[in-house]
């Protein structure tokens, strides 16, 4: 496909997404907004988990920090408007990520994963008990905002911004350095890469995205409680979305978020009591047949100028990853 056609396709899709609110019910719009917010989180996770190869399991902590910072600034005595409050949440998250990242990014593999998980759990409980600030487990209520389009367009803008940033990242020295760290940390260090610095930057980036998603969700949901906004499900969802789409690719997280969100919404409304079973089954099949995600298959094929996708690729995937 020529570059021009590509650009045209992008423009068309963008136009479609921009006019979308005119044509769908406000609940559908909500579903799309959810997808965009999940995409945003997945884009963030992609920096640390996809490009840098650090399986962060506590990104929901930044989602929560973003939500609470945004919320508390908006309802406290300052009555800060939404966007500055959102920015403050993102900033605070980045700061926390940097401070936490310095020690815990020295850990590797599962150890890093459990450390981040532990941090998220601990923060959740702090929010749960810090009555004077967060009103504890009771939670806080943000001002009412009824226009669904507002959330949709904000999320859309952030996701597009995220795409641009990811694209630039993947071509920058920063991105290259992060990938080197993912592939071999010792080698990366010997190549002159300040691994600590790079990892912390990637981690902070992921925190910023999670915080933006958190702040936006808080404003949309109005009622913010530690139980809801520090729930490990959010972390799992962003990881699933990224893996399904393809970790360490520009489009993967967005694509994965679309597939996951739409599938689970569909399953949810169709199977009242068995929807987790169906969703579980879908995830299992996805992993068995596409263990490296959609984008990685598509991208590799594209490089070689082959047809994008054949059913036989699924079986080949199984053959390549099984043990007998």
């Amino acid at each position, binding site marked *: 496909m020529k570059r021009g056609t590509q650009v045209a396709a992008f423009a068309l899709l963008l136009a479609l997404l921009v006019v979308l609110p005119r044509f769908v019910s406000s609940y559908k719009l909500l579903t799309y907004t959810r997808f965009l917010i999940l995409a945003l989180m997945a884009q963030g996770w992609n920096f640390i988990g996809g490009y840098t190869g650090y399986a962060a399991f506590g990104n929901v902590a930044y989602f929560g920090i973003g939500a609470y910072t945004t919320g508390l600034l908006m309802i406290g005595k300052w009555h800060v408007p939404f966007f500055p409050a959102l920015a403050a949440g993102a900033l605070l998250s980045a700061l926390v990520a940097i401070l936490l990242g310095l020690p815990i990014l020295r850990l590797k593999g599962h150890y890093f994963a459990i450390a981040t998980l532990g941090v998220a759990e601990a923060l959740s409980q702090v929010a749960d008990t810090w009555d004077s600030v967060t009103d504890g487990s009771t939670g806080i209520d943000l001002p009412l905002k009824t226009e669904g389009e507002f959330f949709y367009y904000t999320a859309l803008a952030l996701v597009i911004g995220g795409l641009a940033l990811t694209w630039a990242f993947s071509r920058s020295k920063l991105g290259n350095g992060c990938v080197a760290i993912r592939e071999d940390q010792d080698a*990366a260090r010997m*190549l002159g890469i300040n691994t600590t610095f790079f990892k912390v930057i990637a981690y902070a980036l992921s925190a910023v995205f999670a915080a933006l998603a958190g702040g936006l969700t808080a404003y949309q949901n109005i009622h913010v409680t530690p139980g809801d906004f520090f729930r490990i499900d959010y972390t799992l969802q962003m990881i699933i979305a990224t893996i399904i789409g393809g970790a360490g690719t520009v489009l993967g997280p967005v694509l994965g978020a679309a597939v996951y969100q739409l599938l689970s919404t569909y399953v949810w409304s169709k199977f009242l009591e068995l929807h987790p079973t169906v969703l579980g089954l879908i995830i299992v099949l996805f992993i068995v047949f596409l263990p490296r995600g959609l984008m990685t298959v598509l991208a590799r094929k594209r490089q070689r100028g082959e047809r994008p996708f054949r059913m036989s690729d699924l079986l080949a995937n199984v053959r390549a990853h099984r043990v007998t």
Partner: protein
Amino acid sequence: MSALPSPVRRIPGDSILEARGITKRFGGLAAVDGIDLTIRRGEILGVIGPNGAGKTTFVNCMTGLDKPTAGTIVFNGQDITKTPSYRIGRLGMARTFQVVKPLRQLTVRENVATGAMFGARGKGRSAAQARHEADEVLERVGLAEMRGRTATELTILDLKRLELAKALAMDPQLLFLDEVMAGLNQSEIEKAMELILSINRSGVTLFVIEHVMKAIMGISDRLVVLHYGRKIAEGNPKDIVESPAVIEAYLGERYAHRTQAAGDVNAPIEPGTSLKAPPAPAGDTLLEVKGLASGYGEVQILRDVSLEVKDREVVALIGANGAGKTTLLWTISQLLKPMGGSVRFAGRDITAARPEEVVGAGVVHVPQGRRLFAGLTVKENLMQGVYLRRDAERIEQDFERVFSLLPRLKERAGQLAGRLSGGEQQMCAIGRGLMSRPRLLLIDELSLGLAPLVVDSLLDLITEINREGTTVLLVEQDVQVALEHAHRGYVLETGRIVQTGSAAELLDDPRIRQAYLGL
């Protein structure tokens, strides 16, 4: 004689690196024990020593990957003892890793560009400029054609080149090369030597760790010998190899004898004069490979390979790196499924057999790199060798046999295999193979990464095993060593058998001498 360019003797300059009292302890064990070393600007410093002598650990300390327990390092007049490794890289030091560390999912070009981005001159370069720079380096090391491949698709030979290319792209003043020639055949070694010399001529100081004596003798200005973490000799290469201490610790009597007899390090031993293998017995055909094709995924490596091994023979399989020797062994063991052709063993077709059936039939594979179970004890590793056997009463007897063949293993029986030295590990791997009561033993790269002294004793062991009745198919990159200890040989090139004959014939064959022995 060798067509090697005679090394240009450089005038030693001031010191580029001064290491004083470098000690590195892991737990209670000193891997490097108080080494003083000066590297002079512009020289090629060769470093030899047995496995476990602390060579790699020393390089780790110099490049900041390990922080020395004691000692100071001064690079270009600057104390870098506590400097983090990435900054050391930017100051102008680069290294390769003995166990290659490619950025696996990246293309060759991206790998090298990463070095160009963050190395000594990385600051001023954009990502795009770095990629351009990478192309030039790839041209220089002969990897240009591979630039679009991901590192996972490269052969070990190309991965070694990639190591070098990444390091070069960092524009270093001082370059540490850790066994970049391991596994190369003679002609490849010569090319590598030329490349190293040309790098040196372009102004890069080199610190070269190498087991390939011919190469190290050919390029080094000075030679350092490490043993048990200490420096036991330093000086002119010629003097060093004659030093009794070095011979005892590292080279071994036979090597010394060889070189003295020939009067020249580079001279091979006359073919046929020191053959260790007894005359070939005229046994029945034990292994018969016909028209075998094999490979990984979509990449075909072997095309139409046919060979046979007779009962009680030692057969050497030689060939360049990447020719498909290891692939052939893996396919015989059925760890790789053949794409075509057949493998028969003792009259039985094992082409479609499962790996455990192949082992059960008596074909036992001692893989490249030993592949011991590092967390099991030596005894447990040997026990794992009897996994398929049901004759409990004879297992004890086999332990006796293995321990009498390899007394070192008896001493170390309770130790974790991961803690053994390289030579002991190879012994353990062979011992594990023997415990399976093989009729045919497939041995992949017996000498890889081992000191000459150790290799000699292992070869004696193979001869001994064969004398006791075990048939051996030996894959070995050191063609001379292999043929000296075999009855017959096959030559594999780019996935095809191109030549076969008795060991003596092959050693005499001018083509072999030129291609693999560099004569």
